[in-house]
């Protein structure tokens, strides 16, 4: 009987949607599925997990886990996995979760497969699906020995609630000295205003191709005409053109709208991982060799400064008519 543990990352008092999605998926496979929440003041948040298929939620509610740093979490998971005999540990990919999963693999001498977009049981054996080489080939991956550790591509699975409650089980951890050597000095987290881009059905994104911050007005106008939200690339957020809460990518939000229009976005891997699950991707870029054209449904080689305002006018006219 497989025994699976899902790492439930939280931010504030909220369990992360991607992690709950992984939990829901794990609950559809055979065996027993538990969640684990590691943080300070997280016991109440942990109780949410029962609704997504966890039979139990392990909680280490500990002031020293306040900062979202990976190494103390490796100690906690390693001890829990050993004590309870979990044979599979799953994570939704995030900046934090990737470090925790890899540290755990090293600690336990366990196999780690990453960037998985599906999990199936084949004759009782867990098999992961991993798109590789720019998603040009799909690789079925497996594990030798236990535990098996898997990082699931963020946003792959939607949370599905069944309403049942979970048994919340506190546990304590003996931490390694080196796990607290790295310390959080300060955090600059910007809470987003208005509706989150993660919930938007239409997103218009702006990148460095806009040339200057004032040109974000073009992107905003198009988004408004379409009734969508505005997103930005890491490059323009780093440059201070647009708020962090709009950043899509590896560091930033993962989105999967019905329509994603990328304006002046080159589409490097850092950006791609945050928006590749969009239903329809339209890219407008001057550079015919921009990587984004490799995974766009409609690629338009041209100048955003002329195309976007015109497109906005046409969309407005159509919607008004």
């Amino acid at each position, binding site marked *: 009987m497989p025994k699976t543990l899902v790492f439930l990352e939280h931010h504030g008092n909220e369990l992360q949607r991607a992690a709950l999605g992984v939990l829901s998926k794990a609950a559809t496979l055979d065996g027993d599925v538990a969640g684990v929440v590691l943080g300070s003041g997280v016991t109440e948040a942990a109780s949410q997990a029962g609704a997504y298929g966890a039979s139990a939620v392990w909680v280490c509610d500990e002031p020293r886990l306040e900062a979202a740093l990976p190494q103390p979490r490796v100690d906690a998971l390693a001890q829990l996995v050993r004590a309870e005999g979990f044979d599979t540990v799953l994570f939704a990919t995030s900046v934090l979760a990737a470090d925790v999963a890899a540290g755990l693999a090293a600690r336990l001498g366990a196999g780690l497969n990453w960037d998985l977009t599906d999990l199936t049981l084949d004759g009782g054996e867990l098999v992961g699906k991993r798109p590789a080489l720019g998603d*040009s080939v799909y690789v079925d991956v497996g594990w030798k020995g236990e535990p098996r550790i898997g990082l699931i591509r963020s946003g792959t699975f939607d949370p599905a609630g069944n309403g049942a409650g979970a048994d919340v089980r506190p546990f304590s951890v003996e931490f390694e000295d080196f796990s607290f050597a790295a310390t959080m000095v300060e955090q600059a987290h910007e809470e987003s205003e208005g509706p989150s881009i993660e919930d938007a059905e239409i997103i218009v994104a702006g990148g460095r191709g806009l040339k200057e911050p004032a040109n974000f007005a073009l992107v905003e106008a198009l988004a408004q005409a379409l009734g969508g939200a505005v997103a930005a690339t890491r490059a323009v957020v780093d440059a201070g053109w647009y708020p962090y809460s709009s950043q899509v990518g590896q560091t930033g939000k993962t989105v999967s709208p019905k329509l994603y229009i990328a304006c002046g976005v080159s589409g490097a891997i850092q950006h791609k991982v945050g928006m590749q699950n969009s239903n329809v991707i339209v890219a407008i870029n001057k550079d015919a060799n921009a990587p984004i054209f490799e995974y766009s449904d409609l690629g338009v080689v041209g100048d955003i400064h002329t195309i976007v305002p015109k497109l906005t006018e046409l969309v407005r006219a159509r919607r008004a008519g």
Partner: protein
Amino acid sequence: MKIAVCVKQVPESTKRIDPSTKRLDRSGEGALNPFDAHAVEEALRLRDAAGSGEVVVLSLGPAKAADALRKTLAMGADRAVLVSDDVLAGSDLVATATALGAALRRESPDLVLFGQQAGDSDGAVLWAAIADRLRLPLVSQVGELTSSNGSIRGKRQTEFGYDLIEAPLPAVVAVSDAINEPRYPSLKGIMGAKRKPQETLGVDELGLSVDEVGEAGSRTTVLALSEPPPRGESRRIEDDGKAAEQIVEYLVEKRLL
């Protein structure tokens, strides 16, 4: 300060997986993983700002990976160590962490730097495994790095914003590709690279047994390869003044407008 930078050689152009071995085909031309050039650049800047120190670059890979190491020497690194042995082929994360961890222990650097990810496997996990094996503090996704008085400070990017993290040395840091613009090797650097110390270590020199590394030491396996599901027809247009109209037509056709 002694800085070790871990780099990978990745296939330069056409990437394919060999159906017989189910491993990445590494027979063609290789190049320095572009993400790792940022880690090398940061190491050189830290060394030069301190006015002293050593940058040693390590790579685990086939004999040809020496080319990628030579490029880092041409950029300005002081010394290169190639961990290469037939029995290392097919190493997964834990097996790689064992072999590279042993090579790093031999060097005992003050700072170990990694790039953001591997351009071939998209792996972005090795540093955390190495930090755990070496029992050293870890900071990843670092967009700004400073060093003073035996510690480092890294500005890390997460999904939620910036974190400023401090760690005493020795430490392991993975830098993002936003941290700097890597230099191109100068002609003088390229000529000088040949005279810089380069050594190759096998599992014997690292004191490892063959069953801890390579496929024997790996805990993951590749079962099968398949074609990705069709993404649907991808269209491309060049703007001849009608692009906005064509986009609208497309959105209407897709029932998005």
